[in-house]
């Protein structure tokens, strides 16, 4: 049973001299006076009177009384500062029933091989972790791939933008298999046109593939961490060779042969300390392959923070602090650009650092928090997305290591497995969630359970550190959002022209 905790269900935070509150029940973000920031946590406390007296010593009794009146008015007029906490309930078992959890898919991710021609310093697949598949020689058979695609085609016909993506290892090591899959899916699709994408390190982007990529309009997500000296620090071949220049040559050859390919390219930057954000930003703002071919558009970039847990990593504490300073500096630059209406000139890296989170927050649910709340609402296993391992295991996504399974190509999605996964997750986090201010914005998902192998018969835990880290992240996002919202409306109108996909 949840016990109602007295006091507003809010999170109060400070950035420089300014105070903000995030109101969980309304999902509202507020700018507040310092005295209200001091008073809010005291409301409803048993020792409220003594606590208020302490605040009065600091702000003066008039100010404190005004803050208390404002709190009461906020409750009455705007529905803010409510004490209400929802009851945390497990997912409705009906969500895991046959016909509910195995009928609608939008994205199929095929891990076509465990082989990789690179040995990146931060790659979890090369770290010997017990819960993550290691680089190996396993490759998906055509039968497995076709079986998974058939299953997907039976479930995506009603979806708006179905997609099949290829993952690895290095997916381009299995170009022939991908060609077979694309041809099969095109031939047998009964719904909207399917989009195909490949996650690749770009090293094997051979000339012989360019025609196929163009004909099938295939999207590529290329891992490219920045200019050669930064990229090659971590992303090396199995033999230790450099890779950046070869990737850039491949990208240039691709867009020279097919300019439309530039519209289907995106690049993912994995940040690890030590690094140089300015150098990466400059690199993408004047992206050499595009410049040399005369393509004016900026590349689409996304940013990824490497997970170094379990890895032996040479970064020092000083390097980590330096990266924090660089990100803070980028944040200031971003806010200045917003304020001065020069966002367009920021370059893709700086935008990629902050905007995906801002956009998601902008589109957050504004309906009032209900009586109950189900954790794990961040994902519906078996719906929307399905990852297939090289040996044909079905998983909720590609981030869950070797630990979680929903079935296989031979069994289909197993409702029992989905139900167990949902319940395991609920049991792992529900105690923690019930009084957590970040529950509506939380990103902790099943992948957080893929951190170790559980003892036989016990559920998979979600490390408490994961929750702490996500709360810090959410607060940072809220803080950035608050700063952006303080700018004139015209300078943040771009948020209205965005979507969450």
């Amino acid at each position, binding site marked *: 049973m949840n016990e109602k905790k007295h006091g507003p269900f809010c*999170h109060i*935070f400070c950035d420089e001299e300014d105070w*903000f509150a995030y109101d969980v029940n309304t999902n509202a*973000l*507020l*700018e*507040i006076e310092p*005295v209200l920031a001091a008073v809010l946590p005291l409301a409803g406390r048993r020792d409220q009177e003594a606590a208020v007296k302490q605040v009065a010593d600091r702000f003066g009794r008039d100010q404190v009384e005004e803050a208390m009146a404002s709190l009461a008015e906020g409750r009455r007029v705007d529905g*803010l500062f409510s004490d209400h906490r929802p009851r945390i309930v497990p997912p409705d078992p009906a969500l895991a029933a046959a016909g509910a959890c195995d009928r609608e898919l939008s*994205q199929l991710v095929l891990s076509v091989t465990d082989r990789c021609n690179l040995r990146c310093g931060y790659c*979890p697949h090369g770290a010997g972790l017990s819960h993550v598949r290691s680089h190996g020689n396993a490759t998906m058979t055509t039968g497995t791939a076709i079986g998974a695609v058939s299953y997907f085609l039976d479930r995506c016909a009603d979806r708006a933008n179905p997609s099949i*993506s290829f993952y690895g290892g290095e997916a381009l090591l299995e170009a022939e298999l991908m060609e077979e899959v694309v041809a099969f899916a095109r031939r047998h699709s009964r719904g909207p046109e399917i989009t195909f*994408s490949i996650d690749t390190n770009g090293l094997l982007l051979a000339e012989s593939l360019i025609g196929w990529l163009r004909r099938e309009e295939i999207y590529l*997500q290329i*891992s490219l961490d920045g200019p050669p000296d930064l990229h090659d620090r971590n992303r090396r071949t199995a033999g230790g060779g450099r890779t950046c220049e070869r990737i850039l040559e491949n990208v240039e050859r691709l867009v020279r042969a097919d300019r439309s390919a530039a*519209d*289907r390219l995106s690049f993912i930057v*994995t940040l*690890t300390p030590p690094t140089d954000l300015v150098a990466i930003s400059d690199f993408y703002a004047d992206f050499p392959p595009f410049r040399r071919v005369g393509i004016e558009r900026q590349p*689409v970039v*996304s940013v990824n*923070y490497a997970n*170094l847990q379990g890895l032996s990593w040479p*970064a020092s504490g000083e390097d*980590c602090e330096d990266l*924090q300073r660089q*990100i803070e500096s980028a944040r200031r630059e971003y806010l200045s650009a917003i304020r001065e209406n020069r966002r367009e000139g920021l370059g893709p890296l700086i935008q990629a650092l902050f905007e*995906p989170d*801002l*956009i*998601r927050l*902008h*589109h957050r*649910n504004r*309906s009032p*928090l*209900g009586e*109950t*709340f189900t954790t*794990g*609402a961040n*994902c*519906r296993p078996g719906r*929307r997305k399905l990852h297939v391992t090289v040996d044909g295991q079905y998983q909720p*996504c590609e981030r869950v290591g070797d630990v979680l399974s929903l079935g296989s190509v031979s069994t289909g999605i197993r409702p029992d497995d989905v139900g167990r996964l949902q319940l395991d997750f609920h049991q792992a986090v529900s105690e923690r969630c019930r009084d957590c201010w970040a529950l*509506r914005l939380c*990103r*902790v998902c099943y992948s957080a359970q893929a951190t170790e192998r559980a003892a036989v018969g016990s559920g998979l835990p979600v*490390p408490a550190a994961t929750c702490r*880290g*996500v709360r*810090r992240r959410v*607060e940072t996002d809220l803080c950035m*959002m*608050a700063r952006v919202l*303080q700018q004139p409306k015209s300078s943040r109108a*771009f948020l209205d022209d965005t*979507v*969450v*996909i």
Partner: protein
Amino acid sequence: MYRKLDEKTESTGNVVTAAEEDCNCNCKRGSTENEKETPAGNHSQTEFANHYEVHGSSDQ
């Protein structure tokens, strides 16, 4: 004493019933107009447990 910073009111889903629209998964990207046509990519890494936390300091 307080000021609401954004007033957008339309609902995008139902938190209570764990609607798909409330998925906060990182693969559901916030995308600008320029990127709308780009399909959601895969995750290369997990976003959890960074050793070099770059964010705020609060906790409960």
